[in-house]
């Protein structure tokens, strides 16, 4: 007969969960709550929190306004940061060519139309979230798979050399602000 241990079973998540929460207000006044571990993924936000001296006591009373990011993108960013808050730290940036596979959960999260993806990258760039930037860029890079240079030109809207030259000529021919 087996005896059940009397030690209470504690979920690992509960132990790791940090009670400190922060409030973020997007440009369209949506309010988001994010944990300390998650917010650390954004260098911009974490620097702001550190510089403002927000602590566990006053964090929720002092929401952080983020003027450059709308609610929709902020929602995606918060979801991403909460999902990856306990990930192991990425190895130091190296200048070597590396390839990585985009996890399925993140691929689903980033299955949005290209206009939204563009805005999300701008937001990610502003908030300085390295991992999300890598993942978003991987999605865009994947558009180049098995494509010819002509197809890449169409996909990425790259003008030909002749178009570039014509644009440059017209820019130099047009009078400047004083002329």
């Amino acid at each position, binding site marked *: 007969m087996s005896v059940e241990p009397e030690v209470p079973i504690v979920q690992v998540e509960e132990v790791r969960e940090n009670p400190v929460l922060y409030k973020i207000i997007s440009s369209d006044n949506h309010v988001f709550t994010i944990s300390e571990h998650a917010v650390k993924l954004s260098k911009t936000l974490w620097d702001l929190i550190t510089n403002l001296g927000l602590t566990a006591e006053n964090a929720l009373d002092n929401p952080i306004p983020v003027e450059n990011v709308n609610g929709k993108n902020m929602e995606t960013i918060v979801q991403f940061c909460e999902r990856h808050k306990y990930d192991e730290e990425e190895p130091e940036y190296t200048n*070597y060519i590396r390839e990585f596979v985009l996890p399925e959960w993140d691929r689903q999260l980033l299955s949005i139309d290209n206009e939204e993806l*563009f805005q999300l990258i*701008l937001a990610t760039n502003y908030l300085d979230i390295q991992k999300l930037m890598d993942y978003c860029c991987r999605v865009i*890079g994947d558009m180049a798979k098995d494509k*010819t240079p002509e197809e*890449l*030109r169409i996909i990425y809207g790259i003008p030909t050399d002749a178009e570039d030259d014509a644009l440059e000529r017209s820019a130099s021919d047009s009078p400047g602000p004083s002329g």
Partner: protein
Amino acid sequence: MNFLSRLSKLYKFIRIRFHRYPKFPLLYLPYVAMRHVIRSMSVSERIKLSLTSKQMETYVILSRQLSPSCTIHIDSKLSCIDMSHERIMFYSKNKFHKYCDYEIMKYSDYSSWLNKNSSSLEKFSTLTQKVLTLFPTNYLILQLCTDWMGAEDLKALINIPIFRGCNQLEVSGQWPRGEHLNMIMEMANAERDIKLERVTMQFKLQRYEYSTKILDFY
């Protein structure tokens, strides 16, 4: 131009003209993000991207990353550039050897880089220059197969600056003699290894003469 080639061009035209591609304004991204996008691409994708325009080529060069090592194999029949870490090989002709899971790029993939009328060696050195500009390497290995290679060919080859700058020179095939050997040994210096394959007793006779050089035996 044969019928199949015309048909293939027509198919390509129709596919590009009528296919609905996803559109993403890459050039409107901030530079840091664009660099991330380029760096997320494979070697062959970056090369294709650099072929779209001069401006894009500049961006690909600015986003370049190092390859740990690169081997240039020069043979009178079929030369290639081998980036083993990235598992890709480049040929300056349309002929190639297929290795298991290596990606292959050949002449038709970057024909605009290479002058159709130039010699095989010129084409290959231009290709090497282009590839190493986009993907510089920490360690460049030059492998020469001297079978059927005349003294003039060898001289022309080792006088090309990009090949002269290699970190390691490996010579295989017919045992180099006289002028060949002198030219090869002149490539030796304190920062470059020279490896001679298929070398046995003959080499020992030369050892005294080349005792100051750095030599590895196989």
